[in-house]
């Protein structure tokens, strides 16, 4: 076995804090933390506790005095992170935003090139890194042709080629399907066994990492450290578990409580498909064929299946946003109400009153500069309701989704959970009969998750229809386990309609 890591890194934070330029509040403050070389640390904390800020600081990419104010000190092996270029390797949450180059081999080599490693040595490192993460593809494979799990393993290989003594993972599996989560976790375990590098990983879903790490550190919401110890100590004690769960952490063996319940029987049909085949673009390949489906009032459906099977494309077609490639999507009289039977031909204003779609990336759907305008955009500007009629509804939504204190904020400045809540609220503002959601729980903490599920249950028991593309088995179960399983070449329905 080749140990190709140089020595693992020690981390020392003394009274460290960081305030981003233009913010009044410190993102992290009063942090005292010692991490021994080779330790494997899971870093937890509520949204906004500064976990990502700490990782960015350790990676040396927080920037200089223009970009924020630092207090105390944060050192890698006794030196500033910026002076330890290449000693820390950072993998981020979004698989797509960290790919630099077009080919797998070049991508892995990039970091080593920047560290001025000699050419022959670079290629040795590239092969070893790809081997370690188990990414068995040709070096000239296009980086955009990889799946989410493969892209995250590529990102891991790319930092491994720099031979870092400190591995920093910022929610590396939050956007992956269950298969991808296991792929990436196992790759990290293999790498750590081989290199003995220090690990700091941030992740809401604790159970993925609980058996891999030997220490759990919980950051307090107002600075400092809430808890610090072995996984058994921190996660085993009841009071600690409760406080972690309250902060939105997914504590193993615990499920968030969800309000509301689902109606026993579905209502009248709203939308049906016959022999439906879907494709992402007008001339693109058919990704899914032969879908016969009925969506009824007061029901929920979860579309599940592996990545690339066409789940999102099907959802967008059901939502009237894409034209069916073959077959039909038919809106029943109860839904169409004079707009015609083909949802793909509805005008925007007709669509928002009938079918709402929440995209995976909330930012794609933000249209205005304040949360209040965003909530009122649909009823005020699209369907042109009188203010007296929509005001109670939007106020109620703002209240239920805890957006009231954010009404004057810019949607783009919200946290991930807040953005998700807003994007759902904007869709509900025009009271559609059907709500389609694409991966609504990706990367959400447990508190946001429970709110979302409670809200969707409320919609269903109020007579609405909820269709979700999801990999989240807990979510599917909480919404009644009616499943459309999409696999290459076919669909299987399970559960009672």
């Amino acid at each position: 076995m080749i140990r190709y890591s140089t020595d693992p890194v020690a981390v020392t934070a003394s009274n460290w804090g960081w305030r981003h330029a233009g913010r009044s509040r410190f993102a992290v403050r009063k942090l005292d933390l010692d991490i021994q070389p080779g330790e494997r640390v899971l870093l937890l904390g509520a949204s906004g506790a500064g976990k990502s800020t700490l990782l960015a600081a350790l990676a040396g990419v927080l920037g200089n005095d223009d970009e924020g104010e630092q207090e105390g000190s944060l050192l890698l092996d006794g030196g500033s992170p910026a002076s330890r270029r290449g000693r820390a390797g950072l993998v981020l949450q979004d698989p797509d935003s960290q790919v630099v180059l077009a080919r797998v081999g070049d991508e892995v080599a990039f970091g080593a090139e920047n560290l001025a490693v000699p050419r022959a040595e670079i290629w040795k490192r590239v092969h070893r890194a790809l081997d370690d993460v188990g990414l068995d593809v040709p070096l000239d494979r296009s980086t955009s042709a990889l799946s989410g799990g493969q892209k995250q393993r590529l990102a891991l290989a790319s930092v491994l080629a720099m031979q870092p003594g400190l591995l920093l993972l910022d929610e590396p599996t939050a956007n992956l399907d269950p298969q991808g989560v296991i792929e990436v976790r196992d790759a990290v375990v293999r790498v750590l066994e081989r290199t003995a590098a220090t690990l700091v990983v941030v992740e809401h879903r604790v159970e993925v990492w609980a058996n891999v790490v030997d220490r759990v550190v919980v950051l307090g919401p107002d600075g400092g450290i809430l808890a610090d110890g072995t996984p058994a100590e921190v996660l085993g004690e009841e009071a600690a578990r409760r406080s972690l769960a309250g902060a939105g952490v997914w504590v193993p063996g615990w499920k968030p409580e969800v309000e509301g319940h689902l109606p026993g029987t579905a209502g009248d049909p709203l939308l049906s498909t016959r022999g439906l085949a879907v494709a992402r673009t007008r001339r693109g390949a058919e990704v899914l064929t032969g879908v016969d489906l009925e969506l009824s009032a007061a029901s929920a459906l979860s579309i599940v299946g592996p990545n690339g099977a066409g789940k999102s494309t099907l959802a967008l077609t059901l939502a009237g946003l894409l034209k069916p490639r073959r077959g039909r999507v038919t809106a029943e009289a109860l839904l169409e109400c004079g707009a015609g039977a083909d949802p793909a031909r509805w005008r925007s204003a007709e669509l928002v009153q009938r079918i709402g779609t929440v995209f995976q990336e909330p930012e794609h759907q933000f249209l205005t500069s304040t949360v209040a305008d965003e909530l009122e955009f649909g009823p005020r500007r699209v369907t042109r309701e009188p203010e007296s009629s929509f005001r109670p509804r939007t106020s109620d939504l703002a209240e239920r989704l805890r957006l009231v204190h954010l009404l004057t904020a810019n949607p783009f400045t919200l946290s991930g959970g807040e953005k998700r809540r807003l994007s759902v609220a904007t869709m509900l503002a025009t009271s559609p009969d059907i709500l389609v959601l694409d991966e609504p729980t990706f990367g959400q903490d447990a508190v946001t998750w429970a709110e979302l599920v409670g809200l969707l249950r409320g919609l269903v028991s109020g007579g609405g229809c909820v269709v979700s593309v999801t990999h989240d088995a807990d979510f599917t179960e909480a919404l009644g386990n009616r499943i459309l399983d999409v696999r290459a070449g076919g669909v299987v329905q399970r559960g009672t309609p």
Partner: protein
Amino acid sequence: MSSDLLTPSLAGNSVLIRANPLSKLFAAVVITGVVMLSIDWVSAAVALTFEILLMPLLGISMRGLLLRAWPLLIAALVAAYGTALLAEKTGAVLLHVGPVLFTEGSVAAGIAIGLRGLALALPGIFLAVSTDPTDLADALAQKLHAPHRFVLGALAAVRLVGLLVEQWQTLGLARHARGAGAEGNALVRTRNFLGQAFGLIVQAIRRATRLAVAMEARGFGAAERTWARKSTFSPVDAWVAAVGLGIAAGAATAAVLAGTWTFLLS
């Protein structure tokens, strides 16, 4: 227009694939340079003829070319027709129907414009289909010693441009779902288009910012850097450069001998 126009499509071992991007760039620049300097049909026709004759040797099939570049052919035809219709009417009248008047002079000008457009476009297409942007960046930085921060920044940007096409489609669907679809009267449409364009810019900037952080985290920005792949010249490159020069010289000579050379600025 799809993003794959930016992706090299040639496979195998043709001359163009083996050549260094810089020699291809050199050949393309001299040929297009000469064709651009003169508005006449002889130089354009000679250059275009050689370009087409060389296609099998370069490993480019006519069918593949037409599939990718047919809009250019149509553009060239439209440009030729428009020029023939509007250019100075000299020489004998060839066709006169109502307001439509073609003369020998105007038709010759139209043909020259059409041929010139194609002769200018083909070298660029040959370069694009046969060159991986990464190889070009390697060559620019290692052989021409262009600043590597700039070259690699541009390379990362080129990749993001390809992704913008997809992003635009997603944004369109997402906005339609919000009630801001591409419909209604011209004013509403224009407003929605501008809104979507702004949304695309916002997304592009956010994406670029995240990418910059990812690059920095991988040590990008240091003064010293090595290159995993060495950019090399081979005898093929001498041939590519020489043939490029030859075509350029041949086109110019033929036009001068035929007396059709019309310098652009004269």
